[in-house]
């Protein structure tokens, strides 16, 4: 039972264009969402996050949008750069109790073509 889904295993984008990575979730108790980037042979690194009380959070070239009614979030990268090529994981956090661990999606491999 995948509570966090990234339905696109891969995405290719031309340098300078916008990259849009999507993520869907099923658990309405999730209250905090994060995006991580992972290069080969390295651990995931935190990229950007959003609380469920917001619908948008922006940090430089990265913007995360949250649509609670649709249980959908997306990460926009604009303009995309070759160094952005990595696997991007969407993650969600439960709001209470022992649900402190993050639930991760299966990741989307982004390739930015020069």
């Amino acid at each position: 039972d995948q509570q966090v889904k990234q339905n696109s295993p891969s995405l290719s984008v031309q340098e300078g264009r916008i990259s849009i990575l999507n993520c869907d979730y099923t658990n309405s108790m999730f209250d905090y969402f994060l995006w991580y980037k992972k290069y080969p042979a390295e651990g995931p690194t935190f990229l950007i996050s959003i609380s469920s009380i917001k619908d948008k959070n922006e940090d430089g070239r990265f913007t995360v949008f949250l649509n609670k009614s649709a249980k959908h979030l997306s990460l926009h990268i604009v303009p995309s750069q070759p160094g952005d090529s990595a696997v991007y994981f969407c993650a969600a956090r439960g709001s209470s109790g022992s649900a402190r661990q993050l639930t991760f999606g299966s990741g989307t491999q982004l390739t930015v073509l020069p």
Partner: protein
Amino acid sequence: GAGVSQSPSNKVTEKGKDVELRCDPISGHTALYWYRQSLGQGLEFLIYFQGNSAPDKSGLPSDRFSAERTGGSVSTLTIQRTQQEDSAVYLCASSFPRGGGYEQYFGPGTRLTVT
């Protein structure tokens, strides 16, 4: 050493042997997590330590897996009688949950190969 460190970086073991994986979290981080990533899969939660509270072991796949955290710092994940399906990258993360910030900081992982 400001980041999370893990050792060894790679481990090859024979089926049936026991292995120990080590994690050194960021100093001062009270929460520590273990995840694993199998080939082509996302990150799978294994176990969570928070301060002196009893660990959340709900993600451990079998009783062959155990973990401890000594002195609220270093953690060891032990896999007994390893099986080929245990082959994966084992990732450790730590965090200092406060003020709404729940970012977890990951180590580079230990790649375990069971032959």
